[in-house]
């Protein structure tokens, strides 16, 4: 029973990370985690460690790239940026997400006009 839930979560996290990088430009792992938490307005609790596993996956698929750099506080950090393939994937995933959430929304909506 845990398998479908975790896979949805995993896919969703990938989507959120890609979107964050598209919007914010290159970010380090901590920055990505913070940004997702802010956008989620604390409603979404993300284990920051899982962000790194997600980044490993996205890197392997070449949807993001990475480069060591210096943070705003002058600390060494690894920065991630979305690639062209990543943008295409994000576009496809977003459309898919909207379609599915639309369908689910319609299913869950109370019937009107009856």
């Amino acid at each position: 029973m845990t398998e479908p839930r975790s896979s949805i979560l995993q896919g969703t996290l990938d989507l959120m990370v890609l979107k964050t990088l598209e919007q914010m430009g290159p970010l380090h792992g901590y920055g990505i985690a913070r940004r997702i938490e802010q956008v989620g307005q604390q409603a979404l609790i993300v284990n920051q460690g899982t962000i790194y596993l997600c980044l490993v996956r996205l890197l392997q698929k070449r949807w993001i790239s990475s480069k060591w750099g210096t943070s705003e506080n002058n600390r060494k950090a690894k920065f991630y940026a979305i690639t062209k393939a990543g943008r295409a994937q994000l576009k496809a995933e977003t459309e898919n997400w909207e379609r599915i959430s639309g369908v689910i929304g319609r299913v869950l909506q109370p019937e009107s006009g009856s």
Partner: protein
Amino acid sequence: MRASFYSLLARLRGFVRPAVGDADFDHELEHHLAIAEEEKVRRGLSPEEARRQARLELGGVTQLREAARAARGLPWLETFWLDGKLGWRMLRRSWGLTLVGGLAMAVTIGLGASLFTIWDTFAGMRLPIDEGDRVVAIQPFAPASQRVRMTTPLADFRRWRETLRSVEYVSAMRPIDAEVITRNGAVGPVRAAEMTPSAFQLARVQPLLGRALIDRDARVGAEPVAVIGYDLWQSTFASDPAVISQRIEIAGTPHTIVGVMPDGFRFPVNQRLWLPLRIDPVGEEPPDSDVFVFGRLVPGATLDRAQSEVGALGLLRSDAVARTPADLTPRVVPYAAGFFPEVYANSWATGLIFLLGALLLIPPCANIAILVYARTVTRRQEFAARTALGAGRGRIVMQLFVEVLVLATGAGIIGFLLAQQFSGRLSRVMVMGPGTLPFWMDFRPSLPTVLCVVGLSVLAAAIAGGVPAWHATGQWRLSGFSGLASRGPGAQLGKTWITLLATQVALTLAILPSATEMVWGIFRPAIVGPGLPVEQFLTSSLVMEGDTSRFETLRVEAVRQLRADVGIAGATVSATVPLEERFADIEVEEGETSGIQARFNSVDDQFFEVFGARLLAGRRFEAGDFGPGQTPVIVNRSFITEILGGPPSQGPGEAGGHGLGRRVRYRDTAQTRYAAPPSGAHEIVGVVEDFPGDNDGPMMFHPMTPVHPVTVTVRAASGIALAAARLRAITSGLDSRLRLGELRTLDDIYWQRRSADQTFGFVLGAVIAIVFLFSMAGLYTLMTFIVARRWREIGVRLALGAQPRRLLGGIFGRALVPLTIGASVGCALALRLHSWLPIAEAGGQRIPGIVPISAALVIGVGLLAVAGPARRAIRVDPTEALRVG
């Protein structure tokens, strides 16, 4: 798709160089914690609290590191690799198991893969020519009885050729062995075909030189022509580009060479020479003139359409014209299926044969399974430790499976190499006899064979490793893994294993005597010689260039000088190379008239003396036999026993008395016409012993009439090199135009002929050795197992003062059960089998007292196998046994 590919690449990189990713990830986490901590301090938290919260939010670093490593690499492969390394170590430790198990698996996998290669080759019968799948054979077929006749009467062929619309280039052929003589001497029998010229158009292969056969060549009365194959052109004509228009003699008739076909062209079966098939459009058919009919489907036509058309035309029913039984109807099948109708009709059955071949894996694997099971049980402490560390049952089973897989992989590689060696040879033995494989059959192991070997190896590992591991761990699960660590009685070798061992001992003993006699019969000539000093004989063709009118005189003089030479012990002349005689269809007056064949040769008066062939009855050739009009024949013992039904192993008088005075003649068949034996009826005047002793098949020897060229065979008096030198010197000294062909020893000819038998003997010997080895290894394992299981008990009883001899009796008792039962049943079976099997007729050699010898061997080695562990048992140190137990 692309992302998955990149992901796999990255994981492979991570698998090969895990350290790089680990270090990078550790750095990143360090920096993450530092940034998070700094930010929290800026928000007013104390450094300690900031550090604590930062760590909390990140999660467990160790788990994270492990998860990232798993995500970066190929964790299942890593586990597999580790298990493989462990397996390799275990195999080195248990070298006995490795050797016995590995050898058995290798031979069985090799045999299975060979059978697969043969099956695969038959199943995928496609001609390697342009659009080969559209070439079809048309042949009479009886739907009710499923009987197929490969050849068709000429009258039907003529009708199909003129009428059929869905099949083009309707062609006919008749395979023959042609006796070819070039200006350089006799080439020997060459596989040839009489073929309609249309077959060359059908094959769509252009000649390398000259032209292919054309319609004009096939007309009655046309000049005799021949097209030769690449091999023949290379070997006989030294690739001479001026070979076209040269003349060769085929069965006494001069033919002009008009073309050379390219390398690899062997159409229609495996031919090296092609002659036009002459069909008189209206003439009467000679007897035995049926032909193999084939053609090419016209573009757009299907096999079904061709079948409908051919079916509608049918076969001529008139007995006077076609001699065709009424139940036959023509059918159209893929070309290759026309030669192997059984395979075509029963493709599932051939698949079944392969499956049975794969089942051969089960006995050796079951044996290895016993060994692995016993070893697994003795490794309980190791698995207890692993279980305590969190390994589940599946993980332990997987480890044992991979351990045996390592062994199976090694065995698979050796098995593949064996298959490479054996599939071609086996197929020749099984299918058609040496050197006659159809050109479309390639028995070299291919990619499907490799996949088959992989599959068989995994199957072997599953049976030999997975099953016993599952069984053993199942027992532990029932009794609780906690008990694993103890060394007391736990898992047992139950009745199944004991029965299996007893059956195996019985089987070993049952087949050992007969199989040993078979193997001895096959390899005896290699060990004690073929009963004829073949290495002392030298043979060659003797040819005369240009005018051959003086050949007979020179030949007689050459033989006279050779016989007088000190370097030569004897010289004889024959029409054909001894041991390479040709077969011909024969009939015996007032006896068998069809379906019998004998090999024949024409020999001079000294032939039997030179070869030392003992006369069994009648007389040898006398001077008067060599004159014109004489038709005496001398036959060998096999002729008397196999054709005339004489007693198989009686004294000389009785064996010969059966045949003297009987008359034999050659039948007028296509095969016989090209073999060109002496005509007329031949009266048997003498019977000689088979020579060499293992010579198989009936032989007929005729007195030699003057002929050109001849085969000269000399027996060396001292050295073969000297004899060769003398032979050359004497022939060239007589006339410069007198030439010797290639000099060969009978040794080469003899062993070449026996190679197929030796392959069979080797396989049989290997199987026997493995079965024997396994029985003994099984007994050894059983004893080791019993000792290991009763280690503590033995210690206690020794400490309490038990007599080692009595103790041994108890331990031995259990191990001797399968040996005693097996040996008793095996002895009875062996006696029965030994008297029932026709060993001598199948090429074996009887060995006096072989059954008791085998029984003594099996029991003796069996006792030795259990003696080793038994000795260890009575040397158990009681204090050590109690401490460890």
